[in-house]
């Protein structure tokens, strides 16, 4: 932009006339020195360039090779020029690749770049290189020779090795994380449910992610000889923090129930404990249904309390299906004076009670943003009623499988049923 003589305004050239003469002389002197330097270094540049140069005849024999490449390979010039072929300098694998890919492609395209090969030095050392070749044509358009540039790729090769090593390590770490998550998850769920006389129980858990521990949980345990307690819930969030809260929730529920099995009292106890975990910016809450089972002459009485959890579904022996709404319950762990609602359900022969987490009712069903919901679940249950806990859980597992990727969150389900009387005994 500053020195384009052709575009200089005429007036400007006039006024600068005298000094231009002086600097012109100086300029041509510098140019002469500069070109001497260039001429001097043209051959030197070829010989000592920071890359290898090699010219081969069409039959592959080496016609010219620079000092840099000779130095890398530890060969004397006279041992190679006119004596050896380029492929003689390659590893066996490199030679094969050259024959099958490199040479044919070069013939076809006239040039080929960035091919990774391995050269073998005089002392047997292997040298990873990147090779670029062009075909030089004569005046008659016939190919004359092949010019090849060879770059030392040791750095790149070690970089690649480093990448591979890092990837292997990352894979190992991921496997370890998965293993840990699976182990932790198992510790948050009972390995098996205890048997309750005159009752069938079944549970199902869906993990949304193999790396992350989910926040859904359930349990069923004996309170005394003839009373049992169960719970099912969902800690908001995922990962290690949610897992810690889940663990705390389970232990608190179990120990609180032993201390005072009144379901509402149990949830108040849990609320106090979880409030300690609460942080202003990162409130953690749990939704949970807690129940106590007491056997009756026919079936069981279930005293239920809910803290912000979706309502349980009762599938009756007569085929009717209703949600057991528990009014007034709030999320557990966020409010100092939370309210928890209570209800009593009678589970008679042929009845099944289903508890679930919102992972089920919030599953995407593949139509735009539509989700599965409480109505859909009720229809699903109505088609099955009357049923038993194991049969219902099989159907729920099949439903989860049907959702596939639409089941984005973890989902847990627990079912309790009292078997229907078998056919009347023969008179």
């Amino acid at each position, binding site marked *: 932009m500053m020195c384009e003589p052709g575009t200089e305004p005429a007036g400007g050239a006039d006024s600068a006339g005298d000094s231009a003469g002086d600097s012109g002389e100086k300029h041509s002197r510098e140019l002469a020195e500069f070109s001497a330097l260039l001429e001097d270094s043209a051959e030197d540049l070829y010989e000592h360039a920071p890359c290898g140069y090699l010219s081969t005849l069409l039959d592959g024999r080496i016609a010219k090779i620079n000092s840099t490449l000779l130095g890398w390979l530890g060969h004397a010039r006279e041992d190679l020029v006119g004596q050896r072929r380029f492929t003689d300098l390659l590893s066996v694998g490199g030679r094969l690749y050259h024959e099958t890919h490199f040479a044919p492609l070069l013939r076809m395209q006239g040039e080929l770049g960035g091919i990774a090969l391995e050269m073998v030095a005089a002392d047997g050392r292997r040298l990873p290189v990147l090779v670029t070749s062009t075909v030089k044509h004569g005046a008659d358009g016939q190919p004359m020779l092949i010019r090849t540039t060879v770059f030392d790729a040791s750095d790149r090769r070690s970089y690649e090795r480093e990448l591979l090593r890092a990837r292997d390590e990352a894979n190992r770490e991921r496997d370890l994380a998965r293993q840990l998550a699976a182990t932790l998850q198992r510790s948050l769920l009972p390995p098996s449910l205890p048997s309750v006389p005159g009752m069938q129980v079944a549970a199902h858990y869906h993990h949304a992610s193999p790396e992350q521990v989910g926040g859904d949980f359930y349990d069923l345990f004996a309170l005394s000889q003839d009373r049992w307690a169960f719970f099912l819930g969902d800690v908001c969030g995922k990962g290690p923090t949610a897992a810690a809260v889940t663990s705390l929730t389970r232990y608190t529920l179990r120990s609180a129930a032993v201390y005072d099995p009144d379901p509402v009292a149990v949830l108040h106890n849990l609320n106090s404990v979880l409030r300690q975990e609460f942080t202003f910016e990162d*409130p953690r*809450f749990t939704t949970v249904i807690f129940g106590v089972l007491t056997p009756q002459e026919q079936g069981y009485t279930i005293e239920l309390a809910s803290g912000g959890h979706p*309502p349980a579904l009762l599938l009756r022996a007569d085929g009717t299906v209703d949600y057991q709404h528990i009014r007034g319950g*709030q*999320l557990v762990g*966020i*409010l100092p004076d939370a309210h928890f609602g209570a209800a009593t359900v009678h589970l008679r022969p042929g009845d099944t009670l289903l508890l679930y987490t919102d992972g089920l009712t919030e599953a995407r069903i593949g139509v735009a*943003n539509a989700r599965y919901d409480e109505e859909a679940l009720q229809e699903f249950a109505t088609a099955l009623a009357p049923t038993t806990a194991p049969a219902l859980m099989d159907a729920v597992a099949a439903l989860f499988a049907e959702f596939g990727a639409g089941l984005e969150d973890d989902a847990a389900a627990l079912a309790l049923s009292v078997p229907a009387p078998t056919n009347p005994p023969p008179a």
Partner: protein
Amino acid sequence: MTNLTVTATDRGTSQVLEVAGELDMATASQLREVLRDLTLRRGQQLIIDMAGLGFCDSSGMTALITGRNHAVAADASVALTGVPNHLRRALQVAGLDQIFPVHATPDEAVAAWDARSD
């Protein structure tokens, strides 16, 4: 996959956050960031308008609770407006309808708040 837009409007005695789209695990942090950066004045009302909200899971509810915490800490109030029917049910189940005053529209919430301030 899911997206959420949060638009803030200062209406003097109230600040309105219009929350539209899907409020779930993937987007809840977005609302929480807006809430964290929001300066509520003492005696102001924070209105979270949910009219454009198609979905709200437990992560979304956590964000709503964070909003309430901010309001309480600033000596401000909080209200929900335009709660779609399907979310009204979820709020009831969680018992959040007991701690969040609910109005039909932001205008109604502003009017109710101003009437109370007088």
